[in-house]
């Protein structure tokens, strides 16, 4: 084997440092015993974390975010399953343009989406802004992620498994419940986690579409105006960072596990 040139190693290290350095500064300052996020560090403390437990407005925002994230992950996965099935199982006329169209929210800037949704909700539908409108906006941006996770899973298994189920006396619904869903389960779980984490972390659309109640990222942003609360904000951000990372890694592990190989009849 050839030895990699040294400069590539340097490049890789610098690359990783730029990517993760700023993010890793946040947990560092969150345990710093001082009110300003500057060097030198003044000492180790967990008081920013412990004070979070008594911060009712933050806890309320956390609660709101969790509620929305759960609803969004359930609904967007439920909506994505039939869509992914239709695209992977049937020869649909115009399937390719339909898929690209459904993937559009991935590339539309969320600020454009947020403004557009705001106009639609207030001017055309005349609905009051609330956590529900935030959830609706989040479902819109989660769908393409859920779709692509589910489609890759559904494309992965032998279509004759479903044919065999039909042949053995099951109707379309029984086949879905007894064969398709159990086999797609890793994809479904990964789609649920994806939907949860995207909704939980999302700021722009939540900022535009929320009424009087805050989600956690919106709350976090509102706290940035008060310099003395910065360490608390950093502590909260660190926690979100850790939980998000764990969930994303979990979603990916579950999605990858048990993806069947190309061999017929092989697992």
């Amino acid at each position, binding site marked *: 084997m050839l030895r990699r040139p040294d400069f590539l190693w340097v490049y890789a290290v610098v690359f990783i440092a730029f990517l993760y350095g700023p993010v890793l500064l946040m947990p560092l300052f969150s345990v710093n015993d001082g009110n300003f996020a500057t060097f030198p560090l003044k000492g180790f403390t967990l008081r920013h974390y412990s004070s979070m437990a008594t911060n009712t407005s933050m806890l309320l925002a956390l609660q709101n975010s969790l509620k929305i994230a759960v609803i969004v992950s359930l609904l967007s996965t439920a909506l994505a399953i039939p869509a992914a099935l239709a695209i992977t199982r049937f020869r649909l006329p115009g399937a390719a343009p339909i898929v690209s169209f459904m993937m559009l929210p991935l590339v539309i800037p969320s600020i454009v989406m947020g403004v557009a949704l705001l106009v639609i909700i207030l001017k055309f539908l005349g609905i009051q802004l609330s956590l529900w409108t935030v959830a609706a906006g989040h479902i819109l941006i989660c769908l393409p992620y859920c779709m692509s996770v589910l489609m890759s899973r559904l494309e992965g298994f032998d279509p004759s498994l479903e044919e065999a*189920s039909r042949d*053995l*006396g099951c109707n379309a619904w029984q086949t879905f419940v*007894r064969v398709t869903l*159990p086999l797609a389960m890793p994809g479904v779980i990964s789609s649920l986690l994806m939907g949860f984490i995207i909704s939980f972390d999302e700021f722009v659309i939540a900022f535009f579409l929320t009424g009087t109640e805050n989600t956690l990222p919106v709350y976090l942003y509102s706290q940035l105006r008060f310099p003395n609360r910065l360490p608390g904000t950093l502590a909260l951000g660190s926690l979100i960072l850790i939980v998000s990372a764990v969930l994303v890694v979990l979603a990916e592990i579950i999605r990858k596990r048990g993806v069947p190989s190309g061999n017929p009849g092989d*697992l």
Partner: protein
Amino acid sequence: MTDAPIIAMSGLVKRFGTLTVLHDITFDIERGEFFSLLGPSGCGKTTLLRILAGIEQPSEGTLLIDGQPMAGVPANRRPTNMVFQSYAIFPHLNVEENIGYGLRNMALSKSEAAARVAEALTLVKLEGLGKRNAHQLSGGQRQRVALARALVCRPKVLLLDEPLSALDKKLREEMQLELRALQRTVGITFVFVTHDQEEALTLSDRIAVMDKGHVLQIDSPRGLYERPESRTVAEFIGSMNLFSGRVTQVDPGGMAEIDGPAGRFRGIARPGLAPGDAAVAAIRPERIRILRAAPADGINAVAAALQASSYLGDRSLHVLVGTATGQQITVQSGPAADDTPEGGAAGLWLGWGAEAGLILPG
């Protein structure tokens, strides 16, 4: 009703878009038969099987199974079960659950269902493996599970889509014998799709040879081998030497003569041939004798030179080149044949009796 065919196909046509994959398929399959659909890949045999199963719908034509019209009857309500080429063993279920899958939609008590699963496990010699997971099974075992899963539903027709093609040669030959014995035991009509002519000859009561969406000939293995009706069937089943020419004479007794670049040939004629038609003389390698001198009448005689011989114990194969046309001719001789040419490889003659050869439209 019991004498009526179990499957009756009439004018079945299947189109995928503008591509027609099955043309006017009309034939019957009898009760209790081991029937094979044989043809090269892409000939439409699997599509026909999937139409019987109800997985595909015919574009035109009617299909009766056990006297009942099948139009609009979905796969789950047909008296057929299928063994898929990939076996389609459900990976999230164990062997017992796989085999019992089809029983859950039948009104069976738990003990009755369990008894039938156990019976099916015995039938395919998988006793004691009921709790195994699908991924712990070998190829042959998967095949048995797929068979048991289909048979346990007691279908009127069992459909098999190249079930042996994924197995290695030795296992395949074992399974052929078992499959044949199994069919005799259960007495169910088997419709078996294969591209392997040897497999079809070994297993079947009758074979339908298919090519490009048409059924060319339906006959017993012996009938297909000894009386192929067309050049394509003659070439597809076993090996066959062909000599082209034009019909010179058709006898009322069913014999005909052709004249071509390789010589004059006489054989049993396909009905419908007339003098002047393009035709081929077809002769099996084992019916040809190698001679040292030209036969007296000059009919069914080809001058040839030996190119290669291989001794196979129970038989010998000789490859010769026709002197007049340069075409390769295969000859097979028995173990103790004294016509095995030694020394002089050139100046040989090949001959056969008129009753041994066929004259087919070419």
